[in-house]
């Protein structure tokens, strides 16, 4: 959620039962402004919250001018002091796939995982049990990245691509009409397109290259992985990602193209 429209977005996203207490909201508003100034971000988005046993993580992301460029992720335990997280790599993802269970809430906590690794010692090849330690911070980074890739959603028309390449916020975007908002094809994955190049020329002919440069939600498998529920017909219908993919993750279409997420684990 953009920190400018934080309060409104929180109200609208409250249907799933997750919210912020007043003190957290107040501290978020203040601290996000400071983060924006200090890190010189173009936009700062409140990404959400990950629940842990001892403490909860509050995550924010900072964007530069180009909206699709890799974002910087920050976390905080008390919504006041924010720390930068390293960018995600594939190795991290492999490691975190071994770890299961709740988050602890302590960023320096280490998960231990025993693995059988083939160790070559000279001519012998044998398997040894190796204890691999994974830091919670790594797990956090990787999880955030996975969630973003899977369920970050943006309505069509909120961003547009300039001829030089960078992607900008569309200031003339007024939101989707009711009938458009009900269709899955008017929402895109907010990430680098994966399936776009696989489309046939016929399909591409209908697309507008300045607006349709990301994957649409229409062709996601499993079919029902994003479901529409018009919570309150006066508000926009909200596509919520099927919780099998990311439990408790809801997206909300907001006015001028900001996205709202709140996650629990």
């Amino acid at each position: 959620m953009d920190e400018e429209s934080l309060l409104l977005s929180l109200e609208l996203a409250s249907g799933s039962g997750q919210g912020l207490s007043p003190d957290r909201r107040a501290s978020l508003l203040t601290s996000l402004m400071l983060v924006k100034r200090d890190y010189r971000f173009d936009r700062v988005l409140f990404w959400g919250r990950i629940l842990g046993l001892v403490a909860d993580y509050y995550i924010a992301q900072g964007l530069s001018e180009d909206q699709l460029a890799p974002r910087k992720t920050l976390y905080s335990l008390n919504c006041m002091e924010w720390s930068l997280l390293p960018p995600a790599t594939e190795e991290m993802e492999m490691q975190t796939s071994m770890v299961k269970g709740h988050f602890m809430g302590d960023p320096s906590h280490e998960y231990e995982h025993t693995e059988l690794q083939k160790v070559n010692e000279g001519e012998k090849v044998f398997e040894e049990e190796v204890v691999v330690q994974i830091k919670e911070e790594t797990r956090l980074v990787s999880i955030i990245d996975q969630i973003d890739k899977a369920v970050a959603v943006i309505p069509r028309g909120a961003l547009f691509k300039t001829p030089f390449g960078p992607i900008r916020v569309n200031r003339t975007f007024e939101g989707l009409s009711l009938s458009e908002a009900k269709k899955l094809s008017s929402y895109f994955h907010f990430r680098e397109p994966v399936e776009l190049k696989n489309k046939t020329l016929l399909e591409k002919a209908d697309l507008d290259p300045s607006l349709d440069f990301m994957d649409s939600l229409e062709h996601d498998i499993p079919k029902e992985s994003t479901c529409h529920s018009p919570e309150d017909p006066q508000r926009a219908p909200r596509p919520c990602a099927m919780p099998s993919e990311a439990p408790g993750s809801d997206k909300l279409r907001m006015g001028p193209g900001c996205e709202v997420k709140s996650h629990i684990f």
Partner: protein
Amino acid sequence: MGDLPPDPEPPPQPTSSSRNSEVSERRRSGEQSRPQPTVPEEVQQIPLDAQILRGSRETLSNQINRGWSQGASLTSNENFILQAEEAQRGGIEYPSLNTGFPSEVQPQTYPSEGRLQASHNASLMLQQLQQGEGNLFQQLESAYQEPRADLLGQYTRYEREDVQFSQDTQHGPSLRDDAALPSSPSELGFMPFTTELPEPEPRELAVQSAKAYLLQTSVSCDLSLYEHLVNLLTKILNQRPENPLFLLESLNRTTQREWFHPKLDTLRDDPEMQTAYEMAERQKALFGRSGGGGGEGEQEMEEEAAETAVPNIMEKAFYLEQAGVGLSSDESFRIFMALKQLVEQQPIHTCRFWGKILGLRRSYLVAEVEFREGEEELEEEELEEMMEGGEVMQEPGEEEGEEGEEGEEVADVIPKPTWKPPPVVPKEESRKGANKYVYFVCNEPGRPWVRLPHVVPSQIVQARKIRKFFTGFLDAPVVSYPPFPGNEANYLRAQIARISASTHISPLGFYLFGEEEGDDDEEGGAGRDSYEENPDFEGIPVLELVASMANWVHHTQHILPQGRCTWVNPLQKTEEEEELGEEEEKAEEGREEVEQEVGPPLLTPLSEDAEIMHMSPWTARLSCSLSPQYAVAVVRSNLWPGAYAYASGKKFENIYIGWGHKYSPENFNPSLPAPVQQEYPSGPELMEMSDPTVEEELALKAAQEQALEATEEEEEDEEEDEEEDQDD
């Protein structure tokens, strides 16, 4: 029409203006009667009978009088004009309401208005003359002498009427009735002195019944034929297309379609918000107070200020907001209103907002309700009837098993499978165990509340094995393996039962057991199942609540693996089974003894809860670490994500907002189907073996041949021996 007596009495003249119009008609007829020589040619086109004419004259006079009394009806002259116009346009089919007039009389052949009038007037006058009513003619002449100044004025008025009526085609029945009349009003100007209104009623009745018939609406829609024709004709007259008769069909269809799909202007906003308006209407009803306003308002407020069953949702919403949980404040208020509505509709003793279960299409708002004593029996019976349909199916299974045992003794009968379905565990009584409360659900505040049926142990057992999202529709089927016995309403109820049993907690000391009555030995030591509020509860400091889980206790009974809260031995013979009796004893020997299941007793503290993966199943927090003196203690379940409880001072509350599933560190894997059962028991008369393979058969054959050769050799040897012996 010849039955009407030719009364030469003048019909009553309702208004002087009508008289003037008569006069003017006379004037016109007088003027137009001059070009008579041209007229007779046309006159001969009308083969009229004298009788018909007379009758027509009289009826026309009736109609005219009636018309004049209405003040706005057409004279037949004008009718003719109109008819001619319509004939030209071809837009109207001629009505068949002419009472007895021959169709030849209809003026379809008349080319022009003026000539029409002239010809008709002339024809009538001629006919009059033919019939030798000279008196009338003289009257006509005398009337003709009247001052013309008035007539001119009247004439213009007449013209105006003419124009007016030519545009207004909607003048139904009288128009149609007058359609075929050949006589002119001018002639009727003379009539007043001759005829009376013989019988206006049947005519009127006929007209009214015709109109009523046309106005009746069809079964499928609200449109009547009358309205449709009105729309059609208005459309035609507004557009004035070139060849309306050809376009009639398509115009008809367009009009019909437009009735149902009004065309929208692309420049204006289209009404997309229909559903929003409907929802707002429904929710508006929530905000209305029951009963009348005004003077009764004060009384009602006093009544309502007294205790009602509706809980203080806003206060709880406030605390939950402090905890970082819960719905937005206007949604909470709407839920409050909806609960109030529920309390008014049902005989409710206590009511609580249980929570919200999210679904794929729609969500459920769940209210936990306890009925007043004795009130719920009626509704339960209805629900039981619905459920019995499912339970009856299980009983025939047992009977088939019995028959199978007897059938095996008879030869040539396919042996029956020996699998018997496991015995049904009876469901718990209402107000006990898992069925302690009754649950109502609705999709949105404003929609009607639906009661969920009581939960059956088998449903809980199956619900533990599957994991399905709720769609939001109570009658949706739950397709899963192992098959769930019921639809989404049953699954929802089962999940609610599980969540309630696991996550409803209260601070230690809030509830205490009632007076001990030595009920430790009841039913296998199930323990006490009732509790009371403690009037002396002082509240536990928030910091302590957060620090230790021993300060919280469960106040709902744990559900045993069997699916009930109190254990029941399913093998116990009920009365019915004992009658079937002794034959079954043989089969029972094969069954295993079932062990009694025991769960933790009521009011056990949370510290006794089993851990998940070495982690505590509960997480406790202070709502705000910056101001601990006013903070609220919040406890969150790690086992059922979405279950929260808060406590502050003497108040506490539980709520669940989530998808309705238990937490599992692994991804969910549905269970595999069971292995295929062996069909027949191997017994002495029936033994299943697999067919021998080809190699085995060849080997057997070879072995047999070898054996044969061996015996042959032996025989040969013996023969040789015998021969040798014989030789010797």
